[in-house]
Structures are given as structure tokens and as C-alpha cells.
């Protein structure tokens, strides 16, 4: 059904997973996750990374045992056609919500840092055609965007080494100063920055020898975890915990202190370059949503893309102001947590039982 030309090598799963995870959270998650664990919150990032790795393992276990290997087939097999398609519909809405959250939060950052009077509707008119242009063609294009979305902004990570010259390592001492429960609670906040890999449920059949790609998925998650831990540590040795209460976007503030002979205010370049990190997020969610509708209900891919992008446009324009964006983020976070850590294990168990039953019958 999916032509060989449209499939991508297993290595690309690395880029797909990490590109879908790293997003706007990168710019300011440090001052959110320390709510419970304080200066030990970087350990929570590791815990969150491990948790996500476990979920990825479960997802592979589900997908591996299905011939078609995507969520539509899994849902239909597990719950039957009607209930299955209904749950698929919910999944599509989840993807759309995630796309809206990422896009809207990024625009919010632009509004706060660069253009306070930016008109969201006008800005999106430039952006939505780009998303359509990416998702309307082959999956290869989406993967390409994800690949470049990891490779190209890589130099940004190097720029974060500079603040280390002002590092106060006593800020993170003593290590493990908080209770395990605190660290766990912080990790539920940290895990919000790892979301996005749920598109794996959709692109799995597009991977050549998809069964072998599991290790790359884990490597991708590992890359994200290491990157987050490093960024988190840099922020924690640069700012004291009390300062972090004041700072909303620690990564951006860190860029601010960068000194270069030809330019100042590096965060402007940072925000602009972050676009290449945001784009894979949105594009992958939108592609996954489009593909899911196309698979489940049989509408034409390009037409579905247009309809879903109009929904994305309207949703992004409606949610105005800091309040709206916060509500969006909170609800997406909660739904995401439920989806990843409750729904997916439950799906795994039911799917497992269904498979055994089916096997016994035959």
C-alpha cells in the first residue's frame, strides 16, 4: 500500500522522535519543572526520559504485532470498527491540539520578545501555506524537515556553553537533596517537554524494516534527554533557584548574555533559528492527523490537509493572550499525560488480550 519510494530508512526514526520532542519547551522548561524538586529537578528530567523510553517500548510492542502497524488498524482490531474509529477521532483531535499548542506558544514567544503587536492571523497566513506545502506531498518531505530541524539548529546548543564561564556549581549542590516523591512530581512536569513522539503511531509503517527501528527511537529519546539535562544543568548553575522564580524563559535569558563582535542580543537569532525546531513539531502532528483521517475515513490526503489546516488556523487565532495560551498548554499537558501514561499501557494490555483470544480461537 505504501510504496517503497515513500519509506524512509530506520535511522530516520532517531530524527523523527527527537525532532518531535524538542520544541518550545526547550526555551523555558527549567523554571517550570523546579516547582517540587528545586535544584534537583534535572534528575526529574532523567526520570521523565526513562519513563518516555518505557512508553516507546510499549508502543513498539503494540505496533510490532499488527500487520498494518498503525493506530487505526490497532484501534479497529482492539475495539471493533465503531468504537475503534471513535477513539481514532479522539487521537486526531489530540494531534491537532498538540499542533495548536506548539504553534501558538511559539507565536506567543515572538510576541513577547520580538513583535508585541504581531497579528496572529496575518502571521499565520504566511506560515500555514508552508505547512501545507510540507505535508501535502510525500512523507519524505516531512522526514527531511525533521532531519534538518535537528541538524541545523545544533549550533544553538553550542552557544549555551558560553554561560558556563559564569557557572556557580554550588547552586546544584548537594545533589539528591529532595525526596523521591518531589523528584517524581517534578518529572510529571518535565515529561510535558517530551511529548510529541505519539506520531510514531502513524508513521511506523512508513519505516523500512520498521521492527529494527526501535533502537533508533530510543536513541532519539536519549538525545532529547541528554540535551534537556544539559540545558537544565546550565540554567541551574547560572541562576540560583530564587532567580529562577523571576525568569520565565531561562534559555532565552542565557542567550542574552552572549557577547559577539558582530552582534548583540543573540536571543533574536535564537528565536528565529528555533523556528526550524518548531516546524518539525507542527508539521509532523499535522501530517499524522491528516494521514490518520485519510486512513480511517478514506478522504483524499490533500483535501484533508486543507480542512485540518483551516481548523489549526482558527484554533490558533481564537486562543488569544497569555491566558489563552496557558489554558491551552495546561489542558494539552494533562491530556497528554493521560494519553501517554494511562491510555497507551491500557491499550497495550487490551490489545495483548485480544491477540491471545484471537489466536486461541483460530
Amino acid at each position, binding site marked *: 500500500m505504501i510504496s517503497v519510494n515513500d519509506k524512509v530508512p530506520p535511522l530516520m526514526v532517531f530524527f523523527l522522535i527527537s525532532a518531535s520532542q524538542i520544541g518550545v519547551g526547550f526555551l523555558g522548561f527549567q523554571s517550570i519543572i523546579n516547582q517540587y524538586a528545586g535544584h534537583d529537578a534535572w534528575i526529574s528530567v532523567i526520570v521523565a526520559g526513562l519513563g518516555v523510553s518505557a512508553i516507546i517500548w510499549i508502543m513498539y510492542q503494540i505496533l510490532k504485532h499488527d500487520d498494518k502497524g498503525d493506530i487505526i488498524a490497532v484501534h479497529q482490531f482492539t475495539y471493533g470498527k465503531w468504537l475503534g474509529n471513535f477513539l481514532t477521532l479522539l487521537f486526531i483531535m489530540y494531534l491537532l491540539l498538540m499542533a495548536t499548542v506548539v504553534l501558538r506558544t511559539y507565536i506567543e514567544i515572538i510576541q513577547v520578545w520580538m513583535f508585541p503587536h504581531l497579528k496572529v492571523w496575518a*502571521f499565520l497566513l504566511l506560515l500555514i501555506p508552508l505547512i501545507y506545502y510540507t505535508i501535502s506531498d510525500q512523507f519524505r518531505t516531512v522526514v527531511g524537515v525533521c532531519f*534538518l530541524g535537528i541538524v541545523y539548529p545544533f549550533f544553538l546548543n553550542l552557544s549555551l556553553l558560553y554561560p558556563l564561564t559564569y557557572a556557580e556549581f554550588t547552586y546544584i549542590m548537594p545533589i539528591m537533596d529532595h525526596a523521591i516523591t518531589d523528584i517524581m512530581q517534578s518529572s510529571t512536569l518535565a515529561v510535558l517537554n517530551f511529548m510529541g513522539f505519539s506520531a510514531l503511531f502513524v508513521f511506523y509503517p512508513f519505516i523500512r524494516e520498521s521492527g529494527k527501528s526501535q533502537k533508533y527511537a530510543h536513541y532519539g529519546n536519549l538525545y532529547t534527554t541528554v540535551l534537556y539535562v544539559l540545558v537544565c544543568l546550565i540554567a541551574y548553575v547560572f541562576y540560583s533557584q530564587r532567580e529562577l522564580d523571576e525568569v520565565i524563559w531561562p534559555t532565552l535569558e542565557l542567550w542574552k548574555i552572549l557577547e559577539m563582535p558582530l*552582534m*548583540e542580543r543573540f536571543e533574536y537569532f535564537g*528565536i*528565529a*533559528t528555533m523556528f526550524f525546531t518548531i516546524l518539525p513539531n507542527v508539521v509532523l502532528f499535522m501530517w499524522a492527523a491528516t494521514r490518520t483521517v485519510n486512513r480511517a475515513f478514506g478522504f483524499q490526503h490533500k483535501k484533508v490537509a486543507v480542512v485540518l489546516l483551516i481548523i489549526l488556523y482558527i484554533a490558533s487565532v481564537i486562543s488569544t493572550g497569555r491566558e489563552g495560551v496557558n489554558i491551552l498548554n495546561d489542558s494539552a499537558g494533562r491530556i497528554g499525560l493521560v494519553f501517554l501514561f494511562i491510555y497507551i499501557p491500557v491499550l497495550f494490555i487490551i490489545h495483548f488480550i485480544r491477540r491471545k483470544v484471537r489466536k486461541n480461537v483460530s
Partner: protein
Amino acid sequence: MNKKTSQKKVQRDFEKLLKELKQKDGFIHYQHEHGNGTIHLGYLKTGVDPEKLEKYILPRIQDYVYNDLTELNQHIPFTKTELTDDQSQIYEKLMKGFVFIHMENVIPSYLLIPLPLDEKRQVQPPEIEFSVVGPKEAFVEDIDTNLNLVRKRLAIPELSVKKLKVGTLTKTEVAVLSIDGIADKENVETAVQRIKDVEIDQVVDSSFIQQTIADNESSPFPQLLDTERPDRITSILAEGKIAIVVDGSPHVLLGPTTLIEFFSAFEDYFLNWLTASTFRVIRLIAVFFSILITPLYVAVLTHHFEIIPQTMLITLVHSRMQVPFPPIMEALLLEFTIELLREAGARLPTKIGQTIGIVGGIVIGTAAVEAGMTSNVLLIVVALAALGSFTTPVYKMSNTIRLIRFPLIIFAGIYGLIGLTIAIAYIMVHLLRLTSLGRPFFAPVFPFRFQDFKDSLIRLPFDKQNKRPFQVRPSDVKRPIANDNDK
């Protein structure tokens, strides 16, 4: 009985044809009474080599007697002669420099002898892809000469030449070249099939083929590389790519190609790999600089002047103090002026072109700054950008580079750095979608091919390049290059 009537019909038809032909410009008809009847000889004066005609054809007709045309044919020292009864194609053949001989009461009744006047340019040194070192031969307009230039460099039986005819009016000869056993069969088939599918009335240059068989005709990027160097064609054939030679065009197309290949000059292979790699990197930097510098100027000065360090800000503000336009207007105006100069220079004869350069570059430039129409910083920026775009070895790609600068300037003017990033993302996605003969155009960046990087941004020594580029999917990946390290 039957034979006689048919011969009469042929005779009638011939008289009709003769009548028609006599009205054409430059038609010459010669009649020779002969033991067995009359021999008619006809040709168009402009297209036939008179020397050959007088030397080889006329004496044979005048001095000997033949029973039929088959016998005559055996005495004529030319190949590719044709014996036919079909009158309909005679005029077309005459246009191509054939001479026809008609003999009454015999079958077949026409003999067509090719005596075309060879009007072709001599092989000359390359003008566009000139190189200081290396071979000094360039393709000419004649397809046979061009094929010969390649063949004498690749005298192997594996060199396959597939000939096709394109153009309902021009019927231009197009040859697809590849090396069997190295080139991917699918690539060759794709090219041949696409050329066959072309529906066009005229093909006067290889650019017509380049555009009609392109994967995406609306893309500003050319998807087949054109070159005038036979040595380059030889080299890419050995890499497993294919070449398309078009009659009447001194530019030969090659594919599947990649974006990066457009920035490699063939001279790179004649220099030491370190020098060549350095030049390539410089060229790529020049291209990025050329595309991005004016949009950056617009973005930063319109929206983010905070980025500029204080010392530089003074210089910039001072130079812009008198300028009444916003940066985007200023930049578009100046870019337009440069384009105007280039276009005027390109359309005028060389000698007047130089005058234009002086008038435009120096007089207008200085005057514009002094009059306060533009800042001299922008003048420097735009001039450097123009210079950068001219370092691209392939002319068509340098046009593309100049073209894509304009949308970038406009995006940068609207949303500053963010706008610029979005515009770059558009180009990026476009490049990701683009293919050349069905193979990804953005390789080896994506799909990432480490192997192919050995001859892309840089050029490693020949003994390190022991594999053919994977991008073209060669049938035989390994190159017979001895690796010093293996010994």
C-alpha cells in the same frame, strides 16, 4: 499491363512533383538523356555541397549507362543513400541537403543521396566554463561532432547512445548517453521516456529539453546541469550519471544532479584537492552571503537594530541619516538597479556593455549616495551580493540565486528575522520536495549520504573516492581506484 499503368502513374506524379518543386526557392533541376531514358537530378542550391556533387555524382551519371537506380547506387561513393518510391518525403529530404535522382520506367524510381553542406563551427575553447588548466575543448552545435568529442575520450563498447527525435516541426535529434553496467537502467529509462513524452513543436536548444523533462517545471532551480565541456561529460558518465546531447545546442545536459553539484566548477578536479576544496567552500560561502546579506540588512535595520553593536550602529545610522526610504524600499531599489545594469550589460554588445558598467556602477552609485537616495553601506552590501552570485559556475543557477533574493528581502521586510527564517524554510521544503530525474535533489544533505559528501562541499583526493555517488544509484558502486592505504 498492370506494371505499365503503375509506371505511368509514377511518371504523372513525378511531373506534378517537379512542377511543385520548381516554385520553391533555389531548386535546381538537371536532365540527362541517357540510353534507357531520361535521368532527372534535383536539389536545393542552398543546402548541397556543390563540390561533392560535381566531383562524385555528375560524372557517374554522364559517363556511364545504368539499367536501374540500384546499379547506379552501387557506383556512388556515399553511405546513407536511400532507394525509394515514396514521393511524399522527397521535399523534406531536399531541405536536409539530399540530392534526388529519378529515372524513368524503373523501380524503385528515386535515389536519394545525402550531400549536405557542412555549416558548423570549429571546436573552440569553452567560454562560460573556462578553466586556466585542463582541456580547452568545448561542444559545438553539431550533434555528431559533440558525440565524437565524448566518444574519443570514452572509446569503450559500453558507452551506449540512444537516439530519439523530438519536436513536431524541427525533428531535432536527441541522444541519451550512458555507460552500460555503471549507470542505473532506471535513470536511463526515465530520461528516455520523458524525452519521448515531450510534446513540443520546436527544440532549438538543449534548454527546451531541460525545461520540458524537468521534474518540476515551476521550480526556480534548474534540475539538470548543463555544461559545454566534453571532459566534464566524460567524468559524469564514469560516475554513473547520464548525459543528454541535443542537436543544435553547444550545451549538454547531465543528470541526475544535486544542488551542490551546481556549485562545483570542473576546474576543481584539475587542482590539488586542498586548493579545490578551499575554492568550493569559498564559493558556497559566497552564495550564502549573496542570498542572505541584503535580507539580513533589511531585517535588522527595520526591526531589530538592538542586534547591532554600538560602535557599528553609529556607522550605520550615520550612513542612513539622509535616506528618506525605509530599508526595504532602499534595498529593493538598489537591487533593482543592479539587475538593470546586469540586464543592460547582457543585452548590449560587449564594447558598449563596458561603458554601461562604468556609467551604472560608478556614476549612478556615487550619485545615488551623494543625493541621499541610499546609504553607502547598503551599496557595498548589494554590490558584494551581486559579486557573490557571479561566483556560481553554472549560469542558470546564478540566475536562480539572484531571483530568490527578492522574496527573502520582502519577507525580511515584513517580519524581520522570523520572516527571513520562514522564507528560508519555504526554500528548504521546496528543495526537499525537488527531484532530478526522480532522484532527490537535496542529497547528500537529505537523504543524508555520508559517502557522497566526499565530492560535494569539499573534494577529497581521488584515491579516497573509490565509490561512485550513491545518489544516482549506480549499478556498479565500486570504482576501480587503487587506494594507497590498501597496499
